[in-house]
Each structure stands twice: as structure tokens, then as C-alpha cells.
């Protein structure tokens, strides 16, 4: 038995970096300090049977194939496509995404990540109004007002509150929780709301109205209405006062804001509110990014193509327009003629109409486990798990890059995402 310390957890965007993994031979016994979800991700490498050999589907039946055959066939499908979609990337390393972008450019395809169905609207809003950003470390040391809006970290980012926002003692917040105030804005009383000092229940789909009212007050206006979005006037004024009078505020927001009516305009308004608040005090805003390296996908995309997601290489250069070049839009218009999925499960999460088209076209999936997507794929190439069986770079939700560690060897014969993608790219280049 060996204990490996300071391991980074590859589950959510919090990227906890204090995990102690106990390894026993080819098994992981436990992942100390990790939350329930993180722990189960580490233990999932013990799942038996773990897929090892690539699978190729022919005439409706799957058969095992060699890695060389699977890679050659995948390269052939992608190379012959007119409008291929390369999707996923949020649960693999930045190094893998970089190779994915090269493939997309080589074949003139589209590349999009799971961002498209989570914080895509955030990224779009940032392009319009910027982002007063901050690191989680600064929040831990300085924040005295923490707001979670449309986010429930108690369930989705279980250690976020204890490591960065509410519970930890910070340099200027020596008494931890007692030196901070927690406000939760949500449509229902979530488990995070239950531990908050104040809970503001907003009517579903009316976040934009509440944000507009807050902005008007912060900008010196007077609210005329008695109630906005189900929240009484006095409560809105009280909230605005708390925001303006804190020493260091942070607004964390989740998909309750990005995926409810208004989408990118909700975020546009929320960021603008924080911008306005900076006339009174120090305030920042941060999206609660979900998958552990979804932020990294955006970073790599931006430095390589100039755009954060939904990039179309069909004319040889990068073009971007969510609504036109985003995964669900091209799938629902039935434009796509080949799909490569890496480290994601769109069949389980996309709308029915998109999945119907995924079922119609040849799909290649690179993933460590069986999923609904691998079941619908023509080619399934099992890969090692980045952050457990493979090292690689990931970005935390505050865009701090961390290098994830390898704690155990992958099953024999299983390659990493980077290795598989590099070989596919090589093969495609040979064919051209």
C-alpha cells in the first residue's frame, strides 16, 4: 500500500489539490479528503470489467478490434467527412484539447465543448461586457460577502464552501464563517440556501428583472415597483445595501442563471451589476464551472483559435457564432456527417433531437468507460483517465492552471486521450 499526497481531484471545477490517494497494487483503496463525488471518481478505476480493447460496430454488431485498426478507421471517417463535429473535452487534459483543435483544423470540421450546454452563455456575455475576475485564494483571504446565485455547491461542488468561500479562515477573515455573510439567490430552498444567512427566492425565469432592479438601485435610481421577481422592494434594497457596503464581495453563479430564460443576457446583466458595484466597493464575479477541465477547454480554444468554443474550421480558418456553429444547432439542423466524442457523454445529456442525429451518423468515441454514447458509436476506443492514470494540465474555475498527477498505471494496452488523438491526426495527415 502506498499513499500519494497532494493529488488533484479530476471531478469538478473546484480542482481540490489536497487529495491523499491510497493505492494497493492495481486498485485504489481510498481518496482521502475528497468529497463523495470525487472519491467515487477515483474508485471508478476499479470498475470491472473495464473496457480495454477498442470496439467496432459492423452490420449492427460490435466486435473487438486492434488499436491500429480502430485508429485507421476513425481517421478514415473523419478524413472523408464534409462537416464533422468534434465534441467533449471538458474531462480531459488541455494537451488533448490542443490535439483535437489540430484535427478540427486539418479536416475543416467543427469543434465544440460541453461549455455549449453549461456556461457557454457566460463566455458570450464576457465578450460583451468583460469580467471583473478574482482567484479563489483571494476570496478565501478577503471575501466578507459571498453570494451564490442559481448555484447549489452543497451538491455540485461539495468542497467549494469549505475550501474557498464560507468556512475557511483567511488572512483578513480570521474567524472564518463568523467573518463572512452568505446570501443565496435561487428558485427553491436548496441545501446551500439552508445554511445561508439570507435566502432570496426568485421567481423562475425572472432573474434578469431582479438584476435590473438591483443595478438601478446601485446606480442611484429609485425602485418604483413594490415587488420584482417575487421579491419585495425592501428586501431588494436591503440586498443592494449589503452588496454596496461590504468590503470584498463575490458573486458565484451557476446554471440557474446561464440556462434559464435570458441566458447570456442574464450573465451580461449580472456582470454589469458587479461592474457597477465596483463604484462603491470591491466586488468580483465567477462562474461555477462544472466539469474539472471545462475551463481549460475554453482557455486552449481561445489561445489557439481566438474563440472560446463552437469553432467552425470549414473554410480553413476559425469562425465562431454560437447559434450557428454550436454543437446542438448543427446537430438539430442535421448538418453533421461524422462525430468524434472525447471524454463526454452527449447521448445522455443532449436534447432528443440532437441525439436522434447522433444516432444517424458515424460516431467515434474516446472514453475510459462505457456510456450511452459509446453504445451508439461505430468506434469506441477506451482511454486512460486523466488525473488518475495520466497526468495533464487542467484549469480551475478561476482560470488557475494546475498540473494533475498520475497515481496509478492504466490497464495494459489502454492509451491516453493525447496518444490516441495524435495517432488519429497522424493517420489523417497520411491520407491527405
Amino acid at each position: 500500500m502506498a499513499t500519494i499526497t497532494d493529488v488533484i481531484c479530476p471531478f469538478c471545477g473546484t480542482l481540490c489539490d489536497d487529495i491523499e490517494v491510497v493505492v494497493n497494487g492495481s486498485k485504489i483503496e481510498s481518496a482521502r479528503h475528497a468529497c463523495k463525488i470525487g472519491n467515487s471518481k477515483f474508485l471508478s478505476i476499479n470498475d470491472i470489467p473495464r473496457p480495454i480493447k477498442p470496439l467496432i460496430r459492423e452490420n449492427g454488431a460490435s466486435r473487438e478490434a486492434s488499436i491500429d485498426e480502430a485508429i485507421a478507421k476513425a481517421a478514415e471517417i473523419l478524413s472523408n467527412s464534409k462537416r464533422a463535429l468534434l465534441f467533449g473535452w471538458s474531462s480531459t487534459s488541455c494537451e488533448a484539447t490542443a490535439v483535437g483543435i489540430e484535427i478540427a483544423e486539418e479536416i475543416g470540421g467543427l469543434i465544440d465543448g460541453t461549455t455549449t450546454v453549461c456556461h457557454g452563455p457566460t463566455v458570450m456575455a464576457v465578450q460583451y461586457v468583460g469580467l471583473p475576475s478574482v482567484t479563489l485564494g483571494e476570496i478565501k483571504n478577503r471575501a466578507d460577502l459571498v453570494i451564490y446565485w442559481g448555484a447549489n455547491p452543497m451538491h455540485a461542488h461539495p468542497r467549494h464552501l469549505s475550501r474557498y468561500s464560507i468556512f475557511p479562515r483567511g488572512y483578513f477573515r480570521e474567524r472564518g464563517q463568523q467573518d463572512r455573510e452568505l446570501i443565496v439567490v435561487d428558485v427553491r430552498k436548496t441545501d446551500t440556501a439552508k445554511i445561508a444567512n439570507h435566502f432570496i427566492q426568485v421567481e423562475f425565469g425572472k432573474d434578469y428583472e431582479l438584476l435590473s432592479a438591483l443595478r438601478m438601485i446601485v446606480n442611484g435610481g429609485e425602485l418604483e415597483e413594490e415587488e420584482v421577481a417575487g421579491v419585495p422592494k425592501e428586501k431588494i434594497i436591503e440586498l443592494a445595501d449589503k452588496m454596496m457596503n461590504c468590503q470584498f464581495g463575490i458573486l458565484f453563479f451557476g446554471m440557474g442563471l446561464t440556462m434559464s430564460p435570458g441566458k447570456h443576457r442574464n450573465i451580461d446583466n449580472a456582470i454589469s451589476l458587479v461592474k457597477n458595484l465596483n463604484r462603491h466597493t470591491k466586488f468580483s464575479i465567477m462562474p461555477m464551472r462544472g466539469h474539472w477541465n471545462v475551463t481549460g477547454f475554453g482557455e486552449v480554444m481561445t489561445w489557439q483559435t481566438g474563440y472560446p468554443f463552437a469553432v467552425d474550421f470549414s473554410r480553413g480558418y476559425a469562425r465562431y457564432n454560437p447559434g450557428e456553429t454550436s454543437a446542438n444547432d448543427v446537430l438539430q439542423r442535421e448538418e453533421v456527417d461524422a462525430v468524434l466524442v472525447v471524454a463526454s457523454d452527449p447521448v445522455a445529456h443532449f436534447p432528443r433531437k440532437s441525439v436522434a442525429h447522433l444516432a444517424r451518423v458515424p460516431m467515434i468515441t474516446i472514453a475510459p468507460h462505457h456510456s450511452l454514447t459509446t453504445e451508439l458509436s461505430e468506434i469506441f476506443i477506451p482511454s486512460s483517465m486523466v488525473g488518475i492514470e495520466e497526468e495533464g494540465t487542467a484549469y480551475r474555475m478561476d482560470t488557475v492552471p494546475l498540473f494533475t498527477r498520475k497515481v496509478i498505471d492504466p490497464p495494459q494496452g489502454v492509451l491516453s486521450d493525447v496518444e490516441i488523438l495524435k495517432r488519429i491526426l497522424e493517420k489523417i495527415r497520411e491520407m491527405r
Partner: protein
Amino acid sequence: MMTDVILVPKVQHKISLEAEVIKPDEFAGKTIEEIKELPVYFGNTVQKLGDFFEVSGSAEENAENLRIVVEGDVSRVKRIGEGMTTGEILVKGDVDMYLGARMKGGRIVVEGSVDSFAGQQMRGGEIEIKGNAKDYLGGSYRGDWRGMRGGRIIVEGNAGKEVAEFMRGGEIIIKGNCDSFAGVHMKKGLVIIEGSVAERVGAEMVGGSIIVLGEMANLLPSFKIGEVVEGLKIDGREFPGKFRKYIGDFAEGPSVKGVIYKRL
């Protein structure tokens, strides 16, 4: 006297064709054979206009007197009339995205409906749509704060979300109903909605005027209720009846000049 070049779609396809070459500026002075050779983009391939359309008629030397008539459904052809400066385009069917985007002059008439981003960042000329328009009519490019700056768009049917997004000038007339966020981030120009309008009209607007003749969903709390105006005159247009004036969007600050007139 207008001369016509007629395009008849030959094949139906799922992948959208990108054909910004379909505009009088490109066709003028070319023979029919030369027009057929113009490049269009299909997926990751470059093909010829003649592969997708039967081309007939004759192209005039002067683009001003040239009319392109598209006979049929082009609901999977993007960028028709993109950047055109003069002449006319008539489409006798539905059109895909970016119709007349960055257009500077001339006129486009669509007998069917158009997809999103029609008239994106338009500067001049006129677009007339007999059917419906989807989202971002006369809007901006992603991340840009300059939408339509001049010209006129008329939609006989309904329009989608974020009409006149970041509008900086010109005129948009919607004869039917309009979805949410009409005039979002608007700074100048005029939007007339003859039907009803959904919520969040004028969101984050700092200038310009929106006139609503039909019903209006709940206005944002950051607008102030102004006086009642009898008979409205804006940009040389007259609107009879009583109008309630609203000013906003005060979320943007205390000195905003956006106005919404709602007919009572």
C-alpha cells in the same frame, strides 16, 4: 430598366451552402458562364455556384440595374446579399442565416421567411421580409457592440428574440409580433412593433426609440413611467392615438435616453 439574373436551386441539401457571391456587386459585368463559376462553400469544400443553381438571364454591366431572382427554397443557403452595396435581390422562398448582413445599399425582398442574423450590422439599403424573421434581426456580431447602423428592415410577419440588438441607427418595422429582448443594448435608431411584444423589451438600452402598437408584456423594473403623449411624430412619421412614454433602461445608469412608446 432592371435586367434579371435568375437562379433556380437544383439540389436540396442539409449542409448549408455559404453563398455571399449571390449579390449584384458580384454578378455585374459577368457572363452567365462566369457567374456559374463563382465559388460557394459547402461544408469543408469549395464548389461552384453552377453546381447548386440553374443560372439564366443576363447580367448588366452596372450592378445598380441588376436584379437577382432566386426562384425557390434556399432555406439552406447562407449569406445571400452579404455586404451588397447596390441593385436588387428577390427570393421567392425561405432563406437561411445572414441575409443582407453588413449590407450597405440596394434592396432585398424575401417572399418567405428568414433565419437568424438577417441584416446583421447593416449600414444602408432595405430588406423586406414577407414571412417571419428569426433571432438577432439587425443585430451585432458576437462580442461587438455595434449592431445595425443604417437602412431599413421591414418584416410582414413575426420576429424572434433580440431584434435590433445593439442598434446604432436605421429603422426596423415588425408588422407582426416580436419575441423577448427587442432593442437590447440599443443606442440609436427606431424600432416599430405593430403587433405585441414579449418581455424585456428595451433591456439595457441607453438611447433610441421603440414604438409598440400592440400589447406589451411586463416592462423591466428599471424603466420609469413617463407622460401620456397624444399623436406621436418621430423621424417624420406620424402615429395617431394616445401613447404612454417609458424611459430607460436605468439599470445602465442615471443618464439614459432610451424611450419606449406604448399605444394605449
